[in-house]
């Protein structure tokens, strides 16, 4: 049979084979294979090829493989040797290795988790391609200390027309996630989304799955997030399909965008609809007296944010009414890179935000925990270094250079760090879901991010170098003759650095524990603070728009008729706000210097908000003279210094005299950590900016809200129903401290755990070192208790020293932290007592384990060794 073309074996297979098979075997193997191929001549071609490949791949055996790594150099042999010795050392001392690797892994896990968290915080919004040119418009004014982002939509039009040269695009976004029911046929989902102008998706560079970014041009259109589209339409392309919004409006799907990652500003939106649709039928996007939109824009690259901010600062002035103009509203651009971490303002200037502080706190804690783990490692390796001194002596006698010994010891610590790192990666993957819940994040493990690996590996390298430095540099310097003669003895001072490191470890751990306890105490203290009104079932609503004028009584009637509402009332300022200050009060011609928090309320305010009267009564509709009555709180009563305040008459400025009708408990209106203000409440009947609704306690909120919304939709159709629950708003004031407390708890726990692991190792080492001493003492009649005491004492002393160092330190820092709150708990001695007791107990338990083991051991055995 002649070898025709189609009887040649597959070329690629031969190529592969000659790549991996040893050159001297290749010839005979290829020969055998092509003979084999010919034998298969009567089979179909594909089968022949398949068989051929099968046999080729079966040459992937050790005997046939080329040596891809040359192993005949001295260096590889040497490194192999290092590795072998290190590995044997690890295995010989399983207990120490476990403590080392375990502790280091725990420390690294914390460090990696915190790094991920910090990275997530710092990369907030970076998903958007125009990250560097996007900005949000902020506004400050003379009266408010904070900067607002909610504007009248007219401002966007002005920016577009008068300052259009600066911007690529400007887009209005309704300043609130709007919940709507989105439905296709029988599939109905209640979803949150944003109403934004065309231009928004382009600015945000949404990643379109179907359709285009210009999908918000037409009023009756909607863009869906990929996950919502999946729920409504499955995998099919839904562009052009119709959905209904709130069962009333038909909208055409014009695009589907990939879900925005959780660390972006718009991640909570599952749909985007045109802003024009939102205002349709009740207002336009050119009004100046209704504040309900955010303004996002993208600047042209040739301009800078500062330059534009300076130019547009007074852009509002020509368009607003006199009253607003008096407050001197100034606008400026906040670049996207600043939104997340740098957007807290006080008195119009930026201040260090809580978020940025948290980044710092966590970073420091993470570094500390890693440090603790490194200390363990260093301590154990130095403690054991005496044992290895002989090894060094022999190696030196055999001709090792010092540099080679240094390499070996560093290599050993690198090996341990690397093992710890692998364990840490597992732990991170395991704990990440939990950490996401605590930190309210959606972090994923960045398997494919080279930057992450670079950072992490440099941490590993640094840890390995740090931890291996002492044995590498000290042990390698030993004199071979002395060591082998046995005259080398680590002096008394040799254990000093070790002791210092243990003290540092416990100082950090104890401080963290004290810190956590203080945070919790403060949190509890502030939470249990009497607030003077009842937050549960209380809804607040802004009623500043003109539409509310004269409708208060109708509104009250209609709302009460639904049966869902117990009472409603209005006030000129919010109950969670401390605005409105006035002085000029006098009693019998005697003037008071102080100013008071003065607010105007309607008749049923006391009942609605749940004020607690300690004396007197609320305003009453039946008593006409109540119109010149006032209600004061206890702080105010104290300032007025009246023996029996109820019934007394005060004059206020030139407005005449007012009778005190009642005294209520102080209300916590601002921060729960600030003192309460003396306040005076006047009666003002109608048309004030804040509306309060006390829900009927017998009906559920789910039932009540739609009915209440209906009433508002009927009476004030032009105003969005923007309600907040008073208790939710109040709970938000604690969110930050709660998170710090939770994380602090975990980290403090880990810190003490890692420290104890180190102690366990050290005590085991000491017990082992003194094993003959213990034996002799036992023979001479020492009791177990004596020995236990002897072995534990040293460590207990160290921990006591740590307590003495940590307590004043922690007290100082935590007192300073508490000082940032006015309504603050004091750090009670019990915190220190508890922490000290915990630290000592844990130490004793750890050390005793080894001490008692050593003390109860049979002295015959220990004395017979060597």
């Amino acid at each position, binding site marked *: *049979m002649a*070898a025709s073309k189609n009887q040649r074996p597959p070329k690629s297979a031969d190529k592969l084979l000659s790549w991996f098979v040893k050159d001297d*075997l290749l*010839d*005979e*193997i*290829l*020969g*055998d*294979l*092509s*003979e*084999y191929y*010919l034998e298969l001549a009567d089979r179909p071609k594909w089968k022949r090829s398949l068989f051929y490949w*099968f*046999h080729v791949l*079966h*040459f*992937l*055996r050790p*005997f*046939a493989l080329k040596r891809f790594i040359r192993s005949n150099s001295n260096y590889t042999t040497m490194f192999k040797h290092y590795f072998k010795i290190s590995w044997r050392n690890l295995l010989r001392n399983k207990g120490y290795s476990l403590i080392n690797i375990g502790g280091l892994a725990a420390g690294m896990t914390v460090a990696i988790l915190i790094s991920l968290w910090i990275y997530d915080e710092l990369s907030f919004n970076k998903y958007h391609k125009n990250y560097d040119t996007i900005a949000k418009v902020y506004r400050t004014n003379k009266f408010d200390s904070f900067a607002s982002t909610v504007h009248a939509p007219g401002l966007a039009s002005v920016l577009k027309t008068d300052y259009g040269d600066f911007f690529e695009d400007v887009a209005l976004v309704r300043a609130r996630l709007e919940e709507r029911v989105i439905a296709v046929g029988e599939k109905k989902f209640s979803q949150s989304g944003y109403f934004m102008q065309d231009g928004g998706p382009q600015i945000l560079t949404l990643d379109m799955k179907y359709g285009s970014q210009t999908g918000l041009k037409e009023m009756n259109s909607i863009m869906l997030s990929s996950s919502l589209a999946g729920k409504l339409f499955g995998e099919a392309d839904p562009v052009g399909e119709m959905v209904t919004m709130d069962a009333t409006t038909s909208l055409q799907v014009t695009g589907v965008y990939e879900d925005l990652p959780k660390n972006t500003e718009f991640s909570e939106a599952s749909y985007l609809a045109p802003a024009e649709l939102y205002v349709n039928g009740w207002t336009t996007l050119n009004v100046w007296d209704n504040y309900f939109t955010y303004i996002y824009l993208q600047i042209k690259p040739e301009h800078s944010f500062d330059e534009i901010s300076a130019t547009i600062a007074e852009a509002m002035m020509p368009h607003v009414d006199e009253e607003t103009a008096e407050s001197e509203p100034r606008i400026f651009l906040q670049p996207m890179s600043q939104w997340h971490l740098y957007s807290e303002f006080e008195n119009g200037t930026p201040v260090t935000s809580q978020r940025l502080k948290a980044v710092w706190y966590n970073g420091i804690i993470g570094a500390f925990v890693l440090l603790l783990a490194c200390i363990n490692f260093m301590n154990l390796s130095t403690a054991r270094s005496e044992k290895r001194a002989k090894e060094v002596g022999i190696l030196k006698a055999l001709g090792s250079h010092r540099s080679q010994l240094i390499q070996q010891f560093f290599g050993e610590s690198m090996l341990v760090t690397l093992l710890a790192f692998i364990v840490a990666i597992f732990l991170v993957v395991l704990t990440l879901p939990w950490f996401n819940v605590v930190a309210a994040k959606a972090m994923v493990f960045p398997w494919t991010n080279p930057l992450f690996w670079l950072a992490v590996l440099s941490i590993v390298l640094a840890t390995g170098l740090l931890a291996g430095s002492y044995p590498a540099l000290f042990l390698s310097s030993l004199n071979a003759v002395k060591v082998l003669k046995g005259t080398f003895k680590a002096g008394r001072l040799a254990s000093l650095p070790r002791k210092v490191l243990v003290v540092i470890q416990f100082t950090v751990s104890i401080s963290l524990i004290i810190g956590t306890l203080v945070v919790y105490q403060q949190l509890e203290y502030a939470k249990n603070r009497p607030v003077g009104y009842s937050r549960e079932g209380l809804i607040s609503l802004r009623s500043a728009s003109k539409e509310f004028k004269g409708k208060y009584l109708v509104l009250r009637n209609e709302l009460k008729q639904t049966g869902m509402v117990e009472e409603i009332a209005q006030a000129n300022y919010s109950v969670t706000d401390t605005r409105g200050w006035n002085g000029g009060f006098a009693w019998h011609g005697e003037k008071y210097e102080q100013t008071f928090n003065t607010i105007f309320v309607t008749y049923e305010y006391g009942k609605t908000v749940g004020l607690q009267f300690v004396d007197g009564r609320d305003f009453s509709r039946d008593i006409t003279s109540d119109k010149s009555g006032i209600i004061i709180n206890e702080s105010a009563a104290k300032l007025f210094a009246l023996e029996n305040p109820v019934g007394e008459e005060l004059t206020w400025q030139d407005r005449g005299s007012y009778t005190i009708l009642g005294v209520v408990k102080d209300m916590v209106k601002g921060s729960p950590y600030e003192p309460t203000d003396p306040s005076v409440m006047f009666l003002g009947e109608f048309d004030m900016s804040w509306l309060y609704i006390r829900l009927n306690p017998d009906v559920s909120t789910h039932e009540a809200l739609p009915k209440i919304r209906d009433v508002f939709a009927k009476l004030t159709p032009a105003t969005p129903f923007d309600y907040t629950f008073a208790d939710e708003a109040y709970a938000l004031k604690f969110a930050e401290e709660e998170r710090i407390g939770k994380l602090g708890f975990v980290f403090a726990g880990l810190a003490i755990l890692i420290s104890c692991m180190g102690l366990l190792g050290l005590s085991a080492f000491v017990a082992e070192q003194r094993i003959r001493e213990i034996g002799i003492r036992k023979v001479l009649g020492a009791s177990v208790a004596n020995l236990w005491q002897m072995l534990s004492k040293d460590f207990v002393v160290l921990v006591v020293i740590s307590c003495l160092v940590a307590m004043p330190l922690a007290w100082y820092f935590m007192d300073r932290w508490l000082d940032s709150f006015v309504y603050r708990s004091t750090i009670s001695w019990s915190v220190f007592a508890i922490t000290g007791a915990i630290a000592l107990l844990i130490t004793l338990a750890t050390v005793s384990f080894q001490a008692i083991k050593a003390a109860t051991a049979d002295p015959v055995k220990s004395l017979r060794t060597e």
Partner: protein
Amino acid sequence: MEKEYIGELEELVLLLIVMLKDDAYGLAIRKALKEQASRTVTIGAVHGTVNRLEGKGFIESRLGGATEERGGRHKRIFSLTASGRKVLERSRDVKVNLWRQIPELAINKLG
């Protein structure tokens, strides 16, 4: 020092090499394994085995003729060494010895 014991496949291959004489190369051994012992193995496995046996010193090899079917490539012809012979004999002796000690099985099966 060479390993004194050989595995079952190794023993078979050794025997076949003796049997095939001047035609004892990889593919031929594979074929013989199939025909004589009903063992189907990959070509790679045969090569691996002879390689191992050569390493242990039980066989030696020389280059044989190249044919057109082989694309002009040489064969490697194997032959038994003295120690290979010894190890085969030893293996046989052990088994024969064992068989002798269990006459009932031997009679039943062989008789």
